């Protein structure tokens, strides 16, 4: 893959004229996907895809074309040459772009996250054998992802990542289930066995008749996977420079009315922690970290190359959507969660969140999977699914009581178009007066 990419770069360098420049991005994967239902294979297969994006630049004009490639084939040179000519034919009809922004400083990088994984078949065998009679449903993804950047100035950046991500749940009946996941660079059957044991323990609690919860305000513990849903909503337009400059961020009141969150909240885009490539699609090198919210107060925005030019700022992101969020840990010990919660709801997962009032950063969503009623520090019963509707300014503001000492690192299992490289690292949160509505 690396060799064929550099060949294409060399080919393009020969084909462009003296007044042209190019930016070239490669995105490829060779992945296995196995979909399971009732602990049996529903669909299984392999995807090999290679996509190339070419931006041709003449002065302040530019046009971009995306094509699929065959890989190590003469046909690829034909395709990219055809694309080059197509883009060249468009440029005379396009105006200058005042916000065109690309790196001219040459920074070479090479990142390879290798793994020691057995054949996918072995991991699937382990999964099905371990889960045995459990009603397990989920998606196993494994393989290699490639991203690369090069330009006509001579910059070259290479990124390769090989890992697996098994996102699954184990069902008791109807919507009563335990959600779990196992991802990484090394397959450890014992680790997976432990996850199944944990799931079985929670499934036992789900057998208790459920407690019907009435709408109202409750003291709740949001496990990291549940809190991740809230943070992903904040990430939806919350931290981008463009959304701030055009008053569309749901966190507008943090900058316009000095609203703030709890001082426990320090949130950053931590590139050194995450798995995304260290370079942008325009050749800029990302900083190590961008602090978005510091001790409850809004700090910096994520700034894409285009926004950087438009608003005269420095580039610190590829897109303005976070991909390596980290919420700083707190003081609450893992063993003290139930005792500190005392009486309330232990929420493992939230689901299908959306803004019910964007100006107030008010979010609605559902509880999902194993969520429990806790009394006097003991789990008493599972609960039926409930809708919440509450503001970030409350949940992560005055009503935030504590964050846990332990942070979970969650690899995004999304596979839209291709496997995601996004991740999030965060603790759990103890919150009072959490509003349930339906």
């Amino acid at each position, binding site marked *: 893959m690396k060799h064929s990419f550099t060949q294409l770069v060399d080919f393009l360098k020969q084909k462009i004229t003296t007044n042209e420049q190019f930016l070239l991005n490669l995105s490829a994967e060779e992945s296995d996907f196995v979909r399971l239902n009732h602990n049996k294979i529903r669909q299984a297969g392999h*995807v090999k895809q290679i996509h190339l994006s070419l931006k041709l630049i003449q002065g302040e004009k530019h046009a971009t*074309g995306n094509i699929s490639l065959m890989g190590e084939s003469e046909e690829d040179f034909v395709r990219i040459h055809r694309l080059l000519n197509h883009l060249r034919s468009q440029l005379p009809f396009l105006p200058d772009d005042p916000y065109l922004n690309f790196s001219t400083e040459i920074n070479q990088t090479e990142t390879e996250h290798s793994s020691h994984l057995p054949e996918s078949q072995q991991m699937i065998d382990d999964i099905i054998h371990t889960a045995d009679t459990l009603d397990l449903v*989920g998606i196993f993804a494994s393989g290699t992802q490639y991203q690369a950047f090069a330009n006509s100035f001579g910059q070259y950046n290479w990124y390769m990542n090989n890992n697996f991500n098994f996102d699954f749940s184990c069902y008791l009946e109807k*919507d009563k289930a335990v959600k779990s996941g196992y991802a990484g660079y090394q397959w450890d059957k014992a680790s997976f066995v432990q996850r199944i044991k944990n799931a079985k323990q929670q499934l036992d609690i789900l057998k208790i008749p459920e407690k019907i919860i009435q709408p109202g305000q409750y003291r709740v513990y949001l496990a990291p996977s549940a809190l991740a849903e809230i943070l992903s909503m904040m990430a939806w337009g919350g931290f981008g420079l463009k959304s701030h400059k055009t*008053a*569309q961020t749901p966190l507008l009141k943090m900058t316009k009315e000095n609203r703030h969150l709890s001082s426990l909240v320090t949130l950053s885009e931590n590139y050194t922690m995450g798995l995304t490539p260290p370079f942008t699609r325009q050749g800029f090198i990302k900083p190590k970290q961008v602090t978005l919210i510091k001790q409850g107060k809004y700090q910096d925005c994520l700034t894409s190359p285009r926004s950087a030019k438009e608003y005269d700022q420095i580039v610190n992101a590829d897109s303005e959507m976070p991909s390596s969020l980290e919420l700083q840990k707190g003081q609450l010990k893992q063993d003290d969660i139930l005792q500190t919660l005392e009486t309330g709801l232990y929420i493992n997962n939230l689901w299908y969140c959306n803004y019910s009032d964007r100006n107030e950063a008010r979010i609605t969503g559902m509880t*999902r999977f194993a969520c429990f009623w806790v009394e006097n520090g003991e789990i008493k019963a599972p609960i039926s699914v409930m809708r919440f509707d509450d503001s970030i300014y409350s949940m992560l503001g005055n009503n935030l009581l504590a964050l846990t000492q332990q942070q979970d690192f969650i690899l995004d299992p999304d596979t839209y*178009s291709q496997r995601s490289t996004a991740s999030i690292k965060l603790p759990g949160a103890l919150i009072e007066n959490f509003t349930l509505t339906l």
Partner: protein
Amino acid sequence: MNTEDLFKVAHIVKQQVPSVDAWQARIIHIEEESRSVRQDILQPVTTEDDMGIMITLGIGGGMGYAATSDLSLTGISSAMKQAKYWAEICQHKKLFDARSLPLMQHSGQYQTNTIQNWKDRSISDSIEQLYQISKQLKISDLIVDWSAALGWKRTKSLIINQAGSEILQQREQILPHISATANKGAETQSRCLGHEMSGQGGLEQLQRLGFPDKAKSLANEAIVLLDADNCPNGTLDLLLSPGQMVLQIHESIGHPLELDRILGDERNYAGTSFVTEEMFGQYEYGSPLLNITFDPTHNEQLASYGYDDDGQLAEKQFIIKEGILQRPLGGQTSQLRANLSGVANARACHWNRPAIDRMANLNLEAGTSSFEELVSSIENGVLMDTNKSWSIDDSRNKFQFGCEMGYLIKNGELSKVVKNPNYRGISANFWRNLKGVGHQKATQYLGTPNCGKGEPNQLIEVGHAAPPCHFSNVEVFGGAK
């Protein structure tokens, strides 16, 4: 890639296919173009040219697939090996026996009707139109962001199998978008001609989708919303515009009736369903005014086609008739597993994904009332238009939706504008409170290009014919103070 090229790849497939019980190949070529002007500045112009193949092999009742962008003999041969590898693994751990699936033994073609071809319009002309729209949107300093965009997508596909069947289809979509955002202090409101206003066809579709005529009114409405009162809280009558009905049909009828959800395939991701297999043929889903069809035959609708990705002939079927649930949205694989009749809706979003049950065009059949008659039948209610928030539980029952624009209805007449209109309910009850359905003239053929579902994840287009509809006793509410 022209049609001849698709058949050249098909020829390689036929040469390379190993000895197996069953096989199918889906060869796809996707072209896309997008143009957008934001704040009177042309945004990066992009084109897309993407081709690949999905090969599925069946061995001993197990099935395996391999998708590749490498359409060379070597690439296809390698994909065959991968598909065979997974089919062999699957045969001992399979969820169902694929040998029971009927063999497609027919050929056919489908093509979108286009009158004004996208390619016949120069890039300069389409950019100029977007500039003109952009200028119409900036009507005040209160407008802080504004944009207009046009997208086009053409998908050519050829499905072949061991029976010699050949299904050749070409679909073209037109995807307009306009948005205007107004701000005053910490109050921001947006109005848009959203992606639900998309369809199949050429540029001639734009007018019926409101492009570009709605531009100026959208900017005005965004400004009006800044000073509007919040939608009141209470149990009121609700009138939903076609633009919002798209979402209502999609989330609380379409998804719960997808048979793969009912069979549990989606429980780890998109969710399950409150609907069970026993309900078909008898369950009262809604009031007698509720008639829902699976109808891939409206050529201008976003998800029209002649055959699904299993090659099954797509025909109009009643899903709900006079309020009673008739059949699920399930393709031939789910039909086999559930032993239920379904529809031809096994669809994949791309060559790199396998087919799963999708709702395609799911239409609410027109009723008898004009829009004015629907309004006049409401004493105390709210009209809501253009979705901006959607949330529903994993069984597709408890929902909460929000719209960009609301109007109070008092004594049968539209009155003042209200902002942040939201409503919530339970699917199983909501449709039984359907009190009025707009007639054919009030119906709009809309959809959404980005319905997410499946593992691995897939985004696909779906269509919804939507008349305005009146519901009684709905919990509505506005934003916080």
